[in-house]
């Protein structure tokens, strides 16, 4: 194969003027390209942030332009004047109803009426964006930084910077993995282990109610993305409590990566390997939807009136629809309404009190028979 280096061979035979022109063109191309990248990249973030939080964007530009004034106001606030508390919140991005509810909870808690000013940043599922956002918060000298981290690792440096700047950091939802615990002030989130316990507890009750307490029960689990906090907590919680039930057998565990498509694929495989599955535990609602489709395609039935019991986690709105339709048995809540809890912590810190390092939010279990009654009360 002969390859001709187009640029090289042409340049040799070209005169100076043409070279210049060519160079100019290439510079232009690069410029256009860079502009395009920036535009496409930015417009994503910008608009996402705008649609999600018009107020937040406004406050962001405010904060940027009147930094000096803000710094002043902060000193005033510290002097005891009841001034607003500036909170920078870096969110993972919009990914599900759960996440939206989480964002909404923050926005409705940290309002000007409650004495807060929220600077909201949408990280679009990228940790780089979050690191950038936290550094921006530090530069803007906010009073508190709240992070809903994309990943568990890689936070040491930026949190040290925040600590050096004297800004308390509160982590919400996913846990982070740092060498030094003092890098963050508190963590607010779900007790995934407890959720696992709750799921087993519900199943125990349910089996007693349906007179199957002394029968052999075969269980399969569709796990979340391996290594995520939710996966680890829920898997371990279920495993621990299952030890009390000698008649229960975990046939197999496989990851469905928290997505409906993968959940369906994994369930398809389970159903072919085992024809005696009694219970499916899906570590989030989306995978449960996929599993339900796979069960139906295999000619089996699920739900309270079916052959296979479906246990799920998260309890998003679509899960309630599924329970009302009679497909899903139960969903263990993963409460996204972190705002009030974070606000409580900030309130304590403002008063100079110490706070608990780990704060769990309250979570419930929602079985199918109460789904229709519960749904209108749900905020997400």
């Amino acid at each position, binding site marked *: 194969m002969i390859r*001709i280096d187009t640029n090289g061979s042409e340049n040799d035979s070209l005169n100076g003027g043409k070279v210049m022109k060519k160079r100019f063109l290439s510079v232009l191309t690069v410029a256009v390209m860079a502009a395009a990248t920036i535009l496409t990249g930015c417009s994503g973030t910008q608009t996402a942030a705008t649609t999600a939080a018009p107020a937040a964007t406004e406050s962001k530009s405010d904060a940027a332009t009147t930094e000096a004034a803000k710094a002043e106001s902060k000193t005033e606030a510290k002097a005891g004047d009841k001034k607003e508390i500036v909170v920078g919140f870096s969110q993972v991005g*919009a990914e*599900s109803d759960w996440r*939206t509810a989480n964002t909404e909870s923050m926005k409705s808690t940290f309002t000007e009426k409650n004495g807060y000013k929220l600077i909201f940043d949408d990280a679009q599922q990228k940790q780089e964006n979050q690191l950038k956002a936290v550094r921006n918060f530090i530069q803007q000298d906010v009073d508190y930084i709240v992070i809903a981290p994309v990943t568990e690792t890689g936070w040491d440096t930026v949190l040290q910077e925040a600590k050096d700047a004297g800004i308390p950091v509160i982590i919400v939802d996913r846990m982070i993995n740092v060498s030094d615990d003092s890098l963050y002030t508190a963590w607010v989130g779900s007790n995934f282990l407890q959720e696992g316990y709750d799921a087993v507890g519900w199943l125990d009750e349910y089996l007693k109610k349906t007179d199957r307490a002394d029968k052999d029960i075969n269980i399969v689990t569709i796990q979340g993305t391996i290594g995520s906090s939710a996966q680890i907590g829920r898997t371990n919680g279920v495993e621990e409590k299952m030890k009390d039930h000698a008649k229960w057998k975990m046939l197999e565990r496989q990851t469905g990566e928290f997505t*409906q*498509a993968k959940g*369906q*694929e*994994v369930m398809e495989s389970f159903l072919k390997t085992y024809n005696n599955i009694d219970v499916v535990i899906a570590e989030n609602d989306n995978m449960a939807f*996929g599993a339900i489709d796979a069960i139906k395609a295999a000619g089996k039935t699920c739900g309270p009136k079916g052959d296979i019991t479906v246990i799920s986690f998260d309890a998003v709105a679509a899960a309630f629809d599924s329970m009302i339709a009679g497909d899903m048995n139960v969903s263990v809540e993963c409460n996204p309404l972190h705002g009030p809890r974070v606000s409580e912590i900030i309130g304590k810190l403002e008063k100079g009190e110490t706070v608990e390092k780990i704060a769990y939010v309250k979570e419930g279990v929602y079985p199918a028979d109460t789904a229709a009654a519960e749904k209108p009360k749900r905020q997400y």
Partner: protein
Amino acid sequence: MNKCMAFVKKLTGTRLFLPIFCLFLVLLSNLIKTPGFFEVSLKNGVLYGYIIDVINRASDLVILAVGMTLVVAASGGTDISVGAVMSVAGAVCCFILSGGQQTVNEFQNPYLLGVMAAIIAGILCGSFNGFLVAKMKIQPMVATLILFTAGRGIAQLITKGQITYIRVESYKKLGSSIPGIPIPTPVFVALIVVLLTYVLLKKTTLGVYIQTVGINSKASRLMGINSTMIIFLSYVFCGLCAGISGLVASSRIYSADANNIGLNLELDAILAVALGGNSLGGGKFSLLGSVIGAYTIQALSTTLYAMGVSPDQIPVYKAAVVVIIVALQSTELKRMVKRLQTERVAGKKVA
């Protein structure tokens, strides 16, 4: 005896022998642990079995691999934006069918409108990539990196960051099956795409043109082939394939999940092209090789599920198998084997 040897030699000498051999090797490995792997039965009027799963689930990837093959052949580069384009297509389709709502129980707009819009979105994305690569002469990986990063953002904007559900039975048909037909619909979609592309490449001069441009775009231009146009068209076609694939993927879950539709599938598509024995440097290509490569990848995933390999070890097994398959097909290995053989023959003669 000699005739037999000659036949074996001819068989192993054909281009598609190794890819097909690898596919069979992966499939047959199931016989050890899952003897029922090849059993097929009828459930709810649809064929049911592991092997059907492989064929069904691979469809999205097969469609992508077809487009990717042409891009690789014509430009010697890869289109890494296909996964994101799938997500855009799914989002556009669901947005139109739901009329902007988050979950609907009936179409707000005609089904065909949504499908057409999704395909057009795919073509537009492909044109954008094609323009950057063919006209602006930007390196393919860099050019398609733009949509790779921005594509999911666009899809998120369209769906307003939510999963848009289309809970309509007829929307699910493209991803599941049509009543009365025992074979899952995605299989047909993949088959149609492959057949049409194959005919298009064989019956017109397009296939030859793409190869020529891929081998040496300057020489082909001197020969009077509009190489810019050929490269541009290959990207447009790749976008179209991504659009179709996105529709199938979205129909499978009857929703637009901007974050997860086609996630990491661009890498699988590139791998499919490589597993099919195609050079990623462009030029000569085998469409069927890529298709077989795609089925091999899915066969591998399904096999690992069927064997009950624990989820944290799956990537290791996958990597090991891929390394073996790629190594088997490398020309350097063939040369080494040949050298060994000649040495042995020479040694015999001396003795």
